[in-house]
């Protein structure tokens, strides 16, 4: 038995689980964590057993319970196989190109070390980091003393600076939590105390009238509100891409379509990591693999936690309705489950749309982003009343994302206790985006510490914290926009009519520091197809621009990498007329 496990503890937990969940579950200790195995009837039972085993004096819960008849799809990996990275030696290998891995790469690029960031997808920010609300939380929700609380508050403070350095639009719009009589009485003292403990600044109570002055279009079903003015809003994928591009400009390397498949350890040390593009020999490895972080830990024989994906759905409304909201407004329901979501609400995005949601659903599939009517309808029923001027016909699209929740419900940001050259940035559920800058700084410290035992680590003399984003012509004054077009006429050819995106901006995205050429990747950078027509008009023109600028045939162009081809073959007669925007 490892760690200071208490005698009889495991039996007690086992007993409780048998009593209230299923007798087919077996508990054991593994190092200083608790391991659950067996087979049950439903996924709810899996979660329930995991929760029962949580915070019982173990480091973490390894929940391997299976559900009868439920086979989880095998991990989705790129079909591409080559040896681009074969026998590559790097000082730091970061697995995962979400906002966490990308922010870490950027902070580490301050040092004279070689950095390789890999992601299995054809772009960065394909998973949680592009499937969230883009809210930079103030840090009021997490329980005091948790890592979440610490990193959230610190991360929030850092945002003004990083967003400016990386040329990403960021705005401290504040968030307003409406309350009714009951909620006001019970919750308000708790909130005050928590704000103090977590170090959240600027919290203020507003009367109904004051609230309405800030948000004149919200409904009347509340008596007052609390405002958190430090809350901000950012485009999560643009932020992620900006971190990664800045890292690349400072010498880091990013390899997309590259999946970590297995890890070879000797003497509690990682020797190499096998990918679909060759065997990589890193000095240290940073695990930032989002919902798959527990699998990466497992590969290194360092599994002490379990990610149980918690799905959230979000609706996007037409920009037309953006004028009816200035910030983020929510009204928590009284019976809201504690561990679930913060309840969601309505959010004005940095690009002027309104987001509605998210909800929170426990489900076993880590990369299932399908949506269903029930969840979307629930969100409509729950949150649409807040803004009486919005209606379902304003919905332009909806999507879902999976939060990388652990049973402990806290971030895991630490050097592995078992493997000498592994660092975890795992279990980064919400508010992971808000926390990213602070998490990255701490991981940087840890990585430099570990590396220093193996090599000399010097700061880079010419580290450049700045990165220039792609100009957003639509947001410019006419004078400035005119100057841009005069310099490059392509900025005057509008391709996406809904979002007013020019050819020049799309070409910039294709030629950006981390070159991309799928429709979705371009969309994440410069938004063509993100508007109300969802690409029905501009898709062919964007494809044509990719064809010309990325040296690809239209038959090779995909929506999102892999085999998501846009068209399948030439028509009988082949090439058509010369029409369209271009």
């Amino acid at each position, binding site marked *: 038995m490892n760690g200071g496990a208490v005698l009889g503890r495991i039996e007690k937990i086992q007993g409780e689980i048998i009593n209230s969940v299923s007798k087919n579950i077996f508990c054991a200790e593994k190092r200083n964590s608790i391991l659950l195995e067996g087979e049950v009837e439903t996924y709810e039972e899996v979660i329930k057993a995991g929760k029962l085993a949580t915070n019982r004096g173990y480091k973490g819960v390894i929940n391997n319970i299976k559900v009868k008849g439920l086979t989880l799809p095998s991990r*989705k990996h790129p079909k591409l196989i080559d040896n681009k990275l074969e026998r590559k030696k790097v000082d730091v290998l970061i697995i995962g190109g979400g906002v966490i891995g990308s922010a870490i790469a950027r902070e580490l690029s301050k040092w004279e070390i070689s950095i390789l960031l890999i992601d299995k997808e054809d772009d960065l920010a394909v998973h949680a980091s592009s499937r969230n609300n883009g809210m930079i939380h103030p840090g009021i929700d997490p329980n005091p003393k948790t890592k979440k609380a610490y990193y959230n508050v610190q991360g929030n403070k850092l945002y003004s600076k990083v967003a400016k350095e990386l040329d990403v639009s960021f705005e401290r719009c504040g968030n307003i939590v409406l309350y009714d009589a009951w909620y006001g009485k019970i919750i308000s003292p708790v909130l005050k105390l928590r704000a103090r403990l977590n170090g959240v600044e600027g919290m203020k109570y507003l009367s109904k009238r004051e609230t309405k002055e800030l948000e004149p279009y919200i409904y009347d079903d509340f008596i007052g509100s609390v405002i958190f003015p430090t809350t901000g809003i950012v485009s999560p994928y643009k932020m992620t891409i900006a971190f990664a591009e800045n890292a690349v400009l400072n010498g880091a390397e990013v390899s997309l379509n590259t999946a970590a498949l297995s890890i070879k350890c000797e003497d509690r040390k990682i020797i190499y990591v096998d990918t679909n593009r060759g065997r990589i020999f890193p000095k240290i490895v940073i695990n930032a693999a989002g919902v798959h972080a527990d699998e990466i830990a497992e590969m290194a024989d360092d599994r002490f936690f379990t990610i149980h994906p918690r799905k959230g759905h979000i609706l996007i409304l037409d920009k*037309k309705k953006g004028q009816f909201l200035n910030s983020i407004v929510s009204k928590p329901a009284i019976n809201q489950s504690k561990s679930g979501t913060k309840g969601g609400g309505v959010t004005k995005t940095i690009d002027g749309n309104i987001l509605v949601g998210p909800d929170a659903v426990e489900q076993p599939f880590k990369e*299932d*982003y*399908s*949506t*269903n*009517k029930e969840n*979307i309808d629930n969100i409509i029923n729950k949150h649409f009343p807040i803004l009486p001027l919005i209606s379902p*016909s304003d*919905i*332009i*699209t*909806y*999507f879902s994302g999976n939060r990388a929740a652990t049973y402990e419900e806290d971030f895991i940001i630490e050097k592995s206790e078992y493997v000498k050259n592994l660092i975890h940035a795992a279990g980064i559920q919400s508010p992971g985006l808000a926390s990213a800058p602070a998490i990255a700084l701490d991981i940087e410290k840890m990585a430099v510490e570990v590396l220093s035992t193996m090599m000399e680590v010097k700061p880079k003399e010419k580290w450049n914290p700045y990165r220039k984003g792609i100009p957003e012509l639509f947001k410019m004054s*006419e004078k400035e*926009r*005119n100057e841009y*077009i005069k310099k490059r*006429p*392509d900025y*005057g*050819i*509008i391709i996406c*009519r809904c979002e*007013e995106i020019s050819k020049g901006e799309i070409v910039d995205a294709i030629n950006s520091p981390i070159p991309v050429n799928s429709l979705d990747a371009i969309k994440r950078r410069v938004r063509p197809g993100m508007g*109300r*027509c*969802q*690409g*029905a*008009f501009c*898709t*062919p023109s964007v494809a044509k621009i990719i064809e010309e600028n990325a040296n690809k045939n*239209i038959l090779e162009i*995909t*929506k*999102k*990498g*892999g*085999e*998501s*081809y*846009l*068209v*399948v*073959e*030439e*028509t*009988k*007669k*082949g*090439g*058509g*007329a*010369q*029409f*369209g*925007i*271009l």
Partner: protein
Amino acid sequence: MEFYDVVVLGAGPAGLAAGLSSYEEGANTLIIEREKYPGGILKQCIHDGFGLVEFKERLTGPEYAERFIKMVRNKKIPILTSTFVTSIKKEEEIFILSVVSKDGIIKVGAKAIILANGCRERTSKQIGIHGTRPSGVMTAGLAQYFVNIMGYLPCKKCIILGSGDIGLIMARRLTLEGAKVLGVYEVKNSPSGLTRNIVQCLNDFSIPLYLSKTITKISGDDRVEGVEICDVDENMKPIKGTEKFIECDGVILSVGLIPENEIAESLNVEIDNATKGPYVDQNFMTKVDGIFSCGNALHVNDLVDYVTESGRLAGKSAAKYASSKYKRALNPIEIPLNKFLYAVPQYIDINSDNNKVVMYLRSRDIVKNVKVIIKSRNEILYEKRYTHLNPPEMERIVFDFNRSSLNDYSIKILMQEG
């Protein structure tokens, strides 16, 4: 800044006709088009059937457009192509347009503007399709562009959701190009497209049409791998237990068109919920003085000939308005929305010297043996018997009114049995 009497937005069939008639009426006219070539959506509609009313001929879309483009060119009416209107502001009595092109941003002033910017297609999310989000799901118009303009097949084995005209036409087109169209699925119990298209595009090619069925789920990671189809009840709600999986690599949506009116809305032009286009009077002027609307931006037409007609009427009125502004007195036309989907125009300007009204209307349901009556106070302005009214088939009627008898009274549209 350049000044014009009339600026037309869009060089589709509506905009071309509007530009022509405005010019012919003596107005100094400019047409602005976002794409590189004029013609609008017609450029990709390579099937025939256009122009039966206008030219008494069956033309293809590009042929039809070409006739108007030639007329515009012959008259040397300026068209700015690859030029995008980003915003319009009204300053005093003049409209100032911000216009973007590869030459930069310029300002254009106009006494009157005509919005002829067409419509867009409703997307899968706007009708609540669920499941995964692979490639291979697209609107019929996009599929049409891929096939007709670019020369590529977007899928090999597909189903078409919605029986709108573009969907029907694409069913035939994809079949001719060697793709397999497994069927057209329509959630309503009657097709939304023209009967002529059902016959010529589906029946002639043995493509099945399934009514009262819809897609409830799309599956596939990278590409579409299949869809789940469900029967629906009389409220168009899927019936549990009727789910059926169909393998396919494409889903083509023809689920409705929505007039594009973002610019109109930015000018506080009031939009009719029934048409999703602006309210207009018999001169196609919206409720904002000096702003006109026509074509599919006004309401979705099923024949391009009527699009042309509305453009022509709007152009003429706009030119008149630009030469001498007048005060309007708008009286609403009353319409029972339980009987009709809509009627355009929605208002009569009783101050206007134009007392001939061209009206487009659609019945709400399929009805047989009815009379459509238009009356003002007790005077019957128009009356016609129809053996058959069908929502997909728009009716055009023309009537005159006598201004003096109209004062203070609105016009009523009625539908009666018999």
